[in-house]
């Protein structure tokens, strides 16, 4: 047992409080470790991968052995190398889609909440329309329209995931607009963009950040589902979803588990880690939180 450090909550900065509260969540700390490890391996894929992910380097559907630690796929590519590159692609899709939807959501939410009136009504009705689509259906229809591929998936997910963020930001803006510091800015004649981006936005970053982690988890799951159905990232580029695609064949499912189990496990690890981190962030960033 180490000596417990005595902290004085009054003397620490907001970020220190957040960090201290975040560290209390053991599952989230484990999540950070997993994410750093898998993310690091994905980033360093060209260095770590023993083989070219698209090159045929072994026997067809060879079981794991010393040369190919996760075996080879149906046409003789190294599964471990493909898994590294797939993680890279899936993370990239998740992060980019989340960035796009966050930017769209924040801008629309700020505008709707701040200006109100007709603009607000039009934006919110549009949000309702997008929200009323069953999500997967919209994504599937869009995916079948545009040429499938990594960038179309990023754009589709990015343009579909924003309504939640818009509602969240709009709600916060409506509250913040009534606060004295924003009112005094308006009275002082500050330009609108200054009020929006320098006063209101920083005060609503915490909930956006928490929401964005769940969007990240969701978009990674969606990429996997779409690629699994053959409408996402297209072979030969490997993604975690399309590596699972082969498991629809009975031989792969029953006799070659190394072809599909590793990719599934990596998706689960990544998404669980992100969800744990998001949960801890929600707790740590909560201004009304205890301790």
């Amino acid at each position: 047992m180490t000596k417990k450090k005595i902290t004085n909550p009054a003397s620490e900065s907001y970020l220190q409080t957040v960090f201290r509260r975040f560290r209390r969540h053991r599952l989230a700390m484990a999540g950070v470790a997993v994410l750093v490890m898998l993310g690091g391996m994905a980033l360093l894929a060209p260095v770590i991968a023993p083989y070219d992910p698209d090159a045929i380097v072994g026997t067809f559907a060879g079981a794991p052995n010393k040369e190919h630690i996760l075996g080879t796929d149906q046409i003789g590519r190294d599964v471990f190398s493909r898994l590294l590159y797939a993680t890279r692609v899936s993370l990239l899709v998740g992060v980019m889609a989340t960035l796009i939807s966050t930017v769209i959501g924040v801008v629309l939410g700020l505008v709707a909440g701040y200006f109100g009136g007709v603009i607000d009504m039009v934006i919110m009705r549009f949000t309702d329309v997008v929200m009323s689509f069953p999500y997967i259906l919209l994504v599937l229809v869009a995916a079948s329209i545009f040429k499938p591929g990594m960038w179309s998936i990023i754009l589709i997910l990015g343009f579909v995931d924003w309504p939640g963020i818009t509602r969240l930001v709009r709600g916060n803006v409506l509250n913040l607009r009534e606060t004295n510091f924003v009112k005094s800015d308006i009275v002082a004649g500050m330009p609108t963009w200054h009020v929006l981006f320098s006063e209101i936005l920083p005060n609503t970053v915490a909930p956006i950040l928490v929401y964005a982690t769940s969007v990240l988890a969701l978009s990674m799951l969606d990429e996997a589902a779409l690629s699994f159905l053959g409408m996402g990232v297209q072979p030969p580029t490997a993604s975690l979803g399309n590596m699972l695609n082969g498991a629809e064949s009975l031989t792969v499912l029953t006799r070659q588990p190394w072809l599909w189990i590793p990719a599934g496990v990596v998706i689960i690890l990544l998404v669980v880690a992100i969800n744990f981190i998001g949960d801890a962030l929600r707790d740590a960033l909560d201004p009304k939180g205890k301790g």
Partner: protein
Amino acid sequence: MGKYIIKRILIAIPVLIGITVIDYVIMCLAGSPLEMLQGPRVSQATLEAKEIALGLDKPVFVQYFIWLSQLLQGNMGYSMKSYEPVSSMIASRLGPTLLLMGASLLVSLMIAIPAGIYSAIHQYSKGDYAVVTFSFLGSSIPGFFLALLLIYVFTVKLGWLPSSGMTTLGTEGGFWDVAKHMVMPVLVLAFSLAGSNIRYIRSSMLEILEKDYLRTARAKGIGRFKVIYKHALRNALVSIVTVIGMHIPMLFGGAVIIEQVFSWPGIGLMTMSAITARDYPVIMGVCLLSAIVVLLANLITDIVYALVDPTISLN
């Protein structure tokens, strides 16, 4: 109450029209269904005749209005592939999908309500951590991966459960046969739903447990069981209703992938084949149906709110 419902329906109409417009525009960007007919044995003249017969030679907005006016007369159009009326196609596949969705929702609540309550009452205990971890797993495992795992274990290894369809081929089916086919798809859908449900119910229970009226109830000494099941649970109902309302669109979408994996003969399977065949009228019909389901779910959620919580006023 009646006034409120009418007002809500009136608000829903422009949203619904917006949905159909966006649908139609996207659909037209998708490419022509004529592409699917092309082949060495189809002459140019046949294609043109087909184009006129399907009304595809007219501008997009005219096509949209033709579709809309037919819809208002109760005609959802005909499938371009099988020439069946869309309404009867949807009607015959709605049953299996509703069965799947209803059973999954029920099973997920049967897991989530006791687990969420247990976890809230024993906050920060080992059991609580186990329940929360389980719930995160539930919302993090891709449904199709869980489906593959289940098929691997229960169909391939143990041979207990059938992995595709709704009834055994060549038989009439019957209750037990259908029930056996349902086990795996329902488990997969219920597992992911229960994941998010548990956390909602847990956090709303935690909030309620700190309320003054619960302290009063406890102080009265009516016993732990009564405090929780009579006072706390009844107040947690509001959040349970929200959770159900929120998950209906999710279920509707999630069913698409699960139906595909298990070849469940529902709306999802039909939608997937319509999307690949660019069967416009069918896709439009499904989008419309799903939008109506979602808007109805929202409306019913708000009404049930008022029923379970008399302090919420509908104005």
